[in-house]
């Protein structure tokens, strides 16, 4: 840490017109019997009127003094700051220096310019340069000739795609996205039950390609994954296809530019793609959940790289999914769902809700296996054109779900073991029962998609649902 002499300190830069305006003031001050330390951020030959300007192009003094605006005038006494004036204000400068006629002909007031220390990206860079980050993660030195992208692969940090190298500056910048203490422990990440701090999440969010403003969403997703109800450990170990899917609701989806429209489940949106990926990288890197290790998926699914979307809340006909899940209206939240791949339903002839419900139910019937009953949950991602059919008929979401349940209640005889020549099935003693495909809370609807297309997506769940496996978990997104 630099030390300063008692007296007056001025921090300025040539590029600032206000700093240049004050040439005569610097000379006046120097002519008085005062100790004057002038630091120049960009050009040690500035101010021209002084001979002993201190070169602060390295910005250590400016950073140490926490200067945000130039010029800044500070009175320093007894090893500490007594007062400061920011920009040029004749009265303030005269009061602070005790020199009555200071800056005689100059305008009364002129605002200063931004200090180089606060230019975009600079605070993080300087925090790292001057060892002021308080980050606890182990430092890994990458040799000069190593390719830092290849390092991510070689060290096993990658999901198979390149990761952004987690430099200290990038991680410090990522942490500006949250008000939380980097050292705060979120919990123990399965399968290794490794302690996971906000800082570790930030490192993995950097690698996933997140922007700092996405970090609160990633943190909420990690916290949701840690809820025992979500059963992350089991979901990770399973041979099944499933992976955590992140559904985001609330104003943050617009604030960070998430996609709930065309290609909401596809590629191309940075927030959707990187938030889901960050959760997976936390599980991989902090938890140790690696394919071929504890992750024993028979086939997996592409969503294990990233599986994240925002709900389209633009049509007020139905409440946002997060509100259904108990989050106050207007708040942002993530919901985690143990999801397998998606099945498209292209029912483009139904113009009544009755027909559309039965049409979608035909696809829902095959989730998990066409003869499985109450084994899997399902999520309908309803497109705007399908939603329009329900809106025009005035159906509530509850009404739609009730009608889905009716359309998905069948004679048990078709589902028993051996029926239709297929060994798979329910116990033969249930042949005379009416059986429902889904558990009472096993079917849910969220809205997303482009404005054109009479088609919706159906996303089945992990084979272990409810009490014996994973339940939906919703967490409000903090700051």
């Amino acid at each position, binding site marked *: 840490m630099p030390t300063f002499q008692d007296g007056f300190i001025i921090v300025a830069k040539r590029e600032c017109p206000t700093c240049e305006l004050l040439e005569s003031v610097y000379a006046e001050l120097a002519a008085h019997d005062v100790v004057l330390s002038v630091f120049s951020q960009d050009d040690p030959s500035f101010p021209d009127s002084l001979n002993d300007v201190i070169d602060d192009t390295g910005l250590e003094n400016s950073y140490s003094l926490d200067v945000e605006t130039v010029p800044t005038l500070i009175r320093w006494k007894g090893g500490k700051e007594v007062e400061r004036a920011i920009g040029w204000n004749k009265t303030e400068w005269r009061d602070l220096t005790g020199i009555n006629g200071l800056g005689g002909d100059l305008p009364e007031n002129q605002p200063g310019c931004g200090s180089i220390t606060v230019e975009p990206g600079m605070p993080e860079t300087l925090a790292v340069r001057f060892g002021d980050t308080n980050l606890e993660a182990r430092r890994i*030195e990458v040799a*000069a000739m190593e390719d830092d992208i290849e390092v991510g692969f070689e060290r096993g940090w990658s999901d198979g795609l390149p990761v952004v190298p987690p430099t200290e500056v990038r991680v410090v910048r990522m942490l500006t996205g949250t008000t939380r203490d980097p050292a705060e422990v979120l919990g123990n990440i399965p399968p290794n039950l490794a302690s*996971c701090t906000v800082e570790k999440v930030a490192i993995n969010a950097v690698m996933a390609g997140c922007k700092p403003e996405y970090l609160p969403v990633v943190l909420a997703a990690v916290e949701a994954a840690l809820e025992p109800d979500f059963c992350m450990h089991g979901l990770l170990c399973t041979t099944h296809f499933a992976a955590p899917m992140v559904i985001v609701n609330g104003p943050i989806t617009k604030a960070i530019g998430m996609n709930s429209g065309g290609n909401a489940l596809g590629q191309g949106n940075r927030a959707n793609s990187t938030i889901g990926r960050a959760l997976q990288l936390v599980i991989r890197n902090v938890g*140790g959940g690696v394919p071929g290790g504890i992750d024993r998926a028979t086939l997996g699914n592409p969503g294990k790289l990233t599986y994240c979307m925002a709900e389209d809340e633009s049509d007020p006909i139905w409440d946002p999914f997060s509100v259904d899940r108990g989050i106050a209206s207007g708040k942002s939240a993530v919901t985690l769902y143990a999801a397998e791949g998606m099945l498209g339903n292209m029912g483009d002839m139904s113009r009544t809700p009755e027909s559309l419900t039965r049409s979608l139910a035909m696809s829902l019937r095959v989730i998990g296996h066409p003869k499985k009953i109450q084994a899997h949950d399902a999520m309908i991602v309803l497109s705007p054109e399908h939603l329009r059919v329900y809106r025009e008929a005035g159906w509530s979401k509850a009404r739609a779900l009730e009608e889905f349940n009716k359309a998905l209640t069948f004679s048990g005889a078709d589902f028993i073991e051996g029926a239709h020549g297929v060994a798979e099935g329910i116990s033969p003693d249930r042949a005379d029962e009416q059986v429902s495909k889904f558990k009472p809370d096993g079917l849910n609807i969220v809205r997303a998609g482009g404005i054109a297309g009479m088609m919706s997506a159906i996303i089945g769940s992990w084979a272990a649902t409810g009490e014996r496996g994973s339940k939906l978990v919703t967490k409000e997104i903090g700051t």
Partner: protein
Amino acid sequence: MIESQILLDPTAEVSPAKRQRVTPPDSLEGKTIALLDIGKRRGNVFLDRLEERMAERGLTVKRYAKPTNTKVAPLNVVQTIAMECDIVVEALSD
């Protein structure tokens, strides 16, 4: 000058910071062993003797060579060894 870079460890930090060597196998039984001549003089003498000794033990041995010791092995040599063998022994000589 290209400087080294510092990255922050994204893991739970339960393994050493330095990249670890692949764990050697417990046994050579049933494994196919590549003997790679890096192209330096008399490396073949060492590998010939090693092949003899391994053959006496009934091990499967395959021979490969780099065109020159001055450059890293060509990709096709690396890939062929990876496809055909479990273990590789390089002869360093001088």
